[in-house]
């Protein structure tokens, strides 16, 4: 079995074993999407308009949750040394870790997003656009978030630092995704927003492993 596959399986096992996999993020997601309508008011018309946006923004916030431990736990116990000394380059290691993060939390959240939106009153016909948005968006959030996690290595209160680093970088995809959703809601299809979001996700997946690896090397030095 290829070493990177071994690593992916281990990362998934770690996510499921210790943190309960996607459950904390899903619980947080359910929490936000239930509480927001309580704060905004129960009028179905108003809720239906903002439902896709809520589902989308809550996804971005929930993606932040388990990032803190992504590199920190391996740095603390010396595993990062081992990962840096294996056959595959550290960039590939970081990409696999971010991918595992997406599989363990981002993907389940993306599948929950249309359910939450429809529950809040969004028309079910929007569900496909919401799923596409959420899939591309959560993938980008996992990779960009991994970059924040690697940069915050070794700092105290890393979770806060990650949020500060990462949230500005979440702004473009949130805007693209929000644009796609409102286009789709007004019957314009939403393709252009989705394409922009997809492009942003592709760039994040391609470039952030380089930054993650550089930040990890820095932390090991």
């Amino acid at each position: 079995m290829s070493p990177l596959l071994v690593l992916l399986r281990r990362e998934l096992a770690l996510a499921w074993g210790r943190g309960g996999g996607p459950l904390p993020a899903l619980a947080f997601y359910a929490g936000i999407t239930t509480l927001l309508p309580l704060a905004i008011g129960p009028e179905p018309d108003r809720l239906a308009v903002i439902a896709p946006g809520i589902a989308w923004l809550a996804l971005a916030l929930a993606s932040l949750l388990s990032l803190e431990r992504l590199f920190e736990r391996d740095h603390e116990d010396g595993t990062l040394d081992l990962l840096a000394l294996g056959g595959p380059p550290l960039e590939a290691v970081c990409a696999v870790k971010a991918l595992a993060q997406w599989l363990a939390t981002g993907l389940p959240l993306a599948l929950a997003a249309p359910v939450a939106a429809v529950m809040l009153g969004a028309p079910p016909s929007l569900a496909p656009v919401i799923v596409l948005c959420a899939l591309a968006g959560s993938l980008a959030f996992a990779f960009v978030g991994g970059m924040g996690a690697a940069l915050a290595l070794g700092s105290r209160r890393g979770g806060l630092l990650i949020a500060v680093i990462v949230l500005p970088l979440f702004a473009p995809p949130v805007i693209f995704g929000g644009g796609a959703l409102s286009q789709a809601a007004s019957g314009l299809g939403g393709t252009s927003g989705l394409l922009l979001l997809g492009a942003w996700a592709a760039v994040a997946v391609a470039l952030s492993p380089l930054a993650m690896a550089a930040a990890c090397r820095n932390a090991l030095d």
Partner: protein
Amino acid sequence: MISLVQIEALAIRRGERLLFEHLDFTVAAGEAVALTGRNGAGKTSLLRAVAGLLRPAAGTVRFAGVEDADEARATGLHLIGHLDGLKGGRTAREELAFAARWTGADAAGLASAAETLELARLLDLEVRKLSAGQRRRVALARLVAAPRALWLLDEPLAPLDSVWRERIGGLMAAHLAGGGLMLAAVHDPLPIPARAVEIGA
């Protein structure tokens, strides 16, 4: 396979502090070098610099026998530090299997490592339930599971009892007899003949 490690004019700086400079020595195939020195003299930093994890302030580390230094490090060395790199919440079997496969071991290597270090009874326990010495044995098992030429060991015997110190000494002797190299940071003498290099003297 790495046949010689050559350390030339090496200097390591941690923050503002210069740990040592102008350090020159070589480790040849079949040779063990014991790094000695006070606490904080830079033994661990030297091991990490040889492993390529730490950038030296000056000087070079060269490997003979493999063209490219990065490749030599990725395929030719084991670093076992005072952090074992084992996750407390996972079983010893899972952790050993990952560390060994990551460094290139196959199933046969894993089985022989578990047998050599008598881990059969420990493998199904969570790592957090193991004693310090047992944890170290799990960490050292990857040396046997995935044979690599250069062993960089940081206080490898510290948590082990006298019986296991002897037996790990036997493993070291066998590794050297097979043309391996070893660089170990130690406070107590190694159970095998080794050339001592004092750091920060």
